[in-house]
């Protein structure tokens, strides 16, 4: 069964450094998403992406964050200058189409630790 994959599984970085989290969505999916979960808190939506542009973003997704689909398979989340409060589990997801009628398939997550 096709799966969303994410790398790395765990990333440790120092405050102020840039990090890139990578995701490979399911190959025939057109919509891509990033969510994050700070330890003990809700899974929060960050951004959705379709047709090479952001279709929706949350207030969390400020200028420090960016997303890109650099080639036909990868979908990346970049955090330009990490802060301690960026420490969280980051989940990538993809769906065949947009809207809640289409199941979002999630990756296993990348645990980001900012020290």
């Amino acid at each position, binding site marked *: 069964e096709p799966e969303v994959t994410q790398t790395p599984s765990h990333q440790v970085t120092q405050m102020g450094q840039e990090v890139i989290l990578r995701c490979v969505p399911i190959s025939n999916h057109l919509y891509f998403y990033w*969510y994050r979960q700070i330890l003990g808190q*809700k899974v929060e939506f960050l951004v959705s992406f379709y047709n090479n542009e952001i279709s*929706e973003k*949350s207030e969390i997704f400020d200028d420090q964050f960016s997303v890109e689909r650099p080639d036909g398979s990868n979908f990346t989340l970049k955090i330009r200058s990490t802060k301690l409060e960026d420490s969280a589990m980051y989940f990538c997801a993809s769906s065949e189409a947009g*809207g*809640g*009628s289409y*199941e*979002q398939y999630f990756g296993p997550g990348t645990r980001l630790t900012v020290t």
Partner: protein
Amino acid sequence: AQSVSQHNHHVILSEAASLELGCNYSYGGTVNLFWYVQYPGQHLQLLLKYFSGDPLVKGIKGFEAEFIKSKFSFNLRKPSVQWSDTAEYFCAAWATSGTYKYIFGTGTRLKVLA
């Protein structure tokens, strides 16, 4: 604002006990509702979903959920849990209003004792 609440953060049960995990959402319009499960070290997987129709929805692995519109609830149930059900369970909602995002609850960590 749209939100999803899960009231049980940690649940410990013995095998064969019955399970009910609460989920409430706040949104006045039409919502699609989901339960996801995350086994240790694995992906979030869809257990079941409700879009419309029969409010009692059956999912995988013997789970079911009941949508009660008057209570804004979508509780997850299983009559007899197994050790392998140990996982974290997330309720999520999607409002049919032109948005792409799911709104998640905080999750419930279930531990089943053998």
